[in-house]
């Protein structure tokens, strides 16, 4: 598990999932539904598309709001989460998921200006 946190994990949204199969990614979205077993839940990105997140250990607490999930993309398009964190609302400011989505798109549209891979390895 520590290995995934050492490797660059690009931020993606739903439309980019297919490009990152078997690769570590970081996905931020709003929690939609939590499976009764607690081992999986769905997250919706800024465009409203849902992704299924699978956990190794079932959830202990209530999960809601915006979460950031780090994990590998499975070949079925789900994310096998190794770590996740909830973004709490701070000082009344709401996380603007649509805006975040726009930023993610920009990062991917202009990789020459956002060389995260090189920065991480270099």
């Amino acid at each position, binding site marked *: 598990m520590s290995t995934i946190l050492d490797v660059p994990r690009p931020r993606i949204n739903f439309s980019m999932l297919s490009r990152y199969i078997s690769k570590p990614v970081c996905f931020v979205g709003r929690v939609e539904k939590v499976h009764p077993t607690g081992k999986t839940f769905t997250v919706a990105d800024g465009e409203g598309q849902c992704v299924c997140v699978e956990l190794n250990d079932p959830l202990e607490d209530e999960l809601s709001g915006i979460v950031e999930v780090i994990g590998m993309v499975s070949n079925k398009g789900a994310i096998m989460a190794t770590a996740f964190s909830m973004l709490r609302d701070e000082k009344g*400011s709401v996380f*603007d998921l649509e*805006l975040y989505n*726009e930023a993610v798109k*920009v990062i991917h*549209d*202009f990789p020459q200006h956002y060389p995260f891979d090189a920065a991480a390895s270099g």
Partner: protein
Amino acid sequence: MSVNLTAGAIEDLFNESPVINPVLQVMYIREYPPGKQGHTRYRLNLSDGVRSSSCFLLASQLNHLKEAELLAPNCVCMLKKTISSYLGHKRVLVVVDMDVLQTAADAGGNIGNPTQLIGQTTGQQEANPSTSSSDEIPGPSGYGTSGSCENSQMKSSPMKSSWKASPMKASGMMSSMKASGMPSPMKASPVKGSGIVSPMEASPVKGSGMPSPMKASPVKGSGMSFPMQASTSSSPSQRPTKLTPIYHLSPYLSNWTVRARVTNKSDIRNWSNSRGEGKVFNFEVLDESGEIRITAFNSEVDKFFSLVEQNKVYLISKGSLKVANKQYTSLKNDYEITLEANSCIVPCEDSQGVPTVHCDFVPISQLEGKDPEAIIDVIGVCEEAEDVSLITTKAGKQLTKRELVLSDSSGKMVMLTLWGDQAQKFNASCHPVVAVKGARLSTFGGRSLSAFFCSTVMVNPDIPEAFELRAWYNQVGHGLCSQSLTEVQFTSGEFRTNWKSLSDVKTEQLGHGEKADYFSCVATVVFARKENCLYRACPSESCNKKVQEQDDGRYHCDKCGKDYPDFKYRFMLSVNLADFGDNVWATCFQDTAETLLGLGADRLGRLKDTDEDAFNEVFQKVHFSKHIFRSRVKLETYNDECRVKVTVMEVLPVDHRQHSRRLLNSIRTLACGN
């Protein structure tokens, strides 16, 4: 003469036989008796080398051809489009589109030896009909005059009688025209004056219900009081009514029926002046051929105001036509209609073919180039709306108004003022797309728009431009800080901000002009100078002059000329601000420094004297804090030295979402630019 005239074209044209782009020579051009307000039209006598006819009117949009002398006697031209029309009971062809193939100079003299075309009788009239006094097509009032096509034989009275006697009560046609079932057709058609029609060719036009034979019957020369018949009319054969396209309406037409959709309906407006009082409302209608404005006064207001609904289609007839007052409308029609007591408006279910609201939207960025007082159609997203406010006019009237800011994809914004009911009813939530038809442009605050009583304001209209604008706004527009054409300060909103980066200050040479430049930026305090951040100021109210300490421990203020036992600390803080591009030194005075440092001047002063650590702590905290700085920059000369001085006017916390949106938009804009 290398150009050949289309022989037989004149006969064909008046026969209603199809003839495509006939080439004709202009024999002469007469000025039409000017109608009201000097509305000039030209009447042409055209020849195909065999026959000639003076029953041609030049459409007013082609007047320039004559005025530029391109169209002159003897020139050769090609008629590309004509419309059949009627002056009283005389048929004329209105030339809507033509090309001049040969100028008069090139053509030389007359081509061929054309004879005048009149009726069935083979032309043996004088070749130069211009001598005939019966030349003049009757003016607007002249239904009764001899509207004959130059035919010296035909003089008014004799023809009249023979004509009337003929079974050709062409006026019978009238009834076929009106869906509303007009009674006695005779009444409707001003069958006066000479129709020059030899009874020979009288088609058996009896009574109603003969629309088709009408068309087929050879309409030679003038004089059949046929109803309006536009050869380009789109009325399909199944419709029993003979409709007139709006394009053809003119004061010289009688008995028209128009089928059109109401695009713009105003409120009732009451007025009272020295001549009396009254009420008026107007509306604009549109059909496939064009638009026209309709006004109703007093009793007609009562009759029609509730009947006429925006966006519905009606059959309208029997209004009076006059030259349009362009001051009140953006429509491109020379005429406008006034409803009379006998006007008739009937809802029409069959609206096939009648287009919906037609607006000629002007991008906001082009408003600067338009004349002030122009009537404009605009569509934009309502970014901000002030609340409804009440103002009192100079006349003492109370008006409600509401100001909105519209922005569109041209990247500019403008203020739109709504009045009265429109102001109160307007719902500004969710950034609606607002389309205004017929708003008046004014020079208030630079350029701004006002929706006066004739304008129609549509919120989120069902038109493609609205959808495009909504899509643009959702993707790009909402974060865009467009430049406003209206330099009025808003109490709320972002519109006065001029976002720059610190590198722009140098590259754009801000402050180098005559006036100071104001800008806003997001920057980080890299350094705040502790030394001399405070000065001792005169304690009296509103005098902030630096005081000199006297020997006796009192403080002397030069401005007040007094000594004071005490002073007050005031800020004059030098900070170095930086962003990705550059850094600048700026000065923060009392208010801004207090906001930045988070405490008042006197408190800091006390700390400075008492607790040095705490004093330093204050400055530590401010280092590397990020804020929005609204600043004033000016090039100032001090003892032969020119320096750009930046003064911070306001310090605000960074709104990250807004800042992110701005950045995203800049990125996208830059990307598109490349």
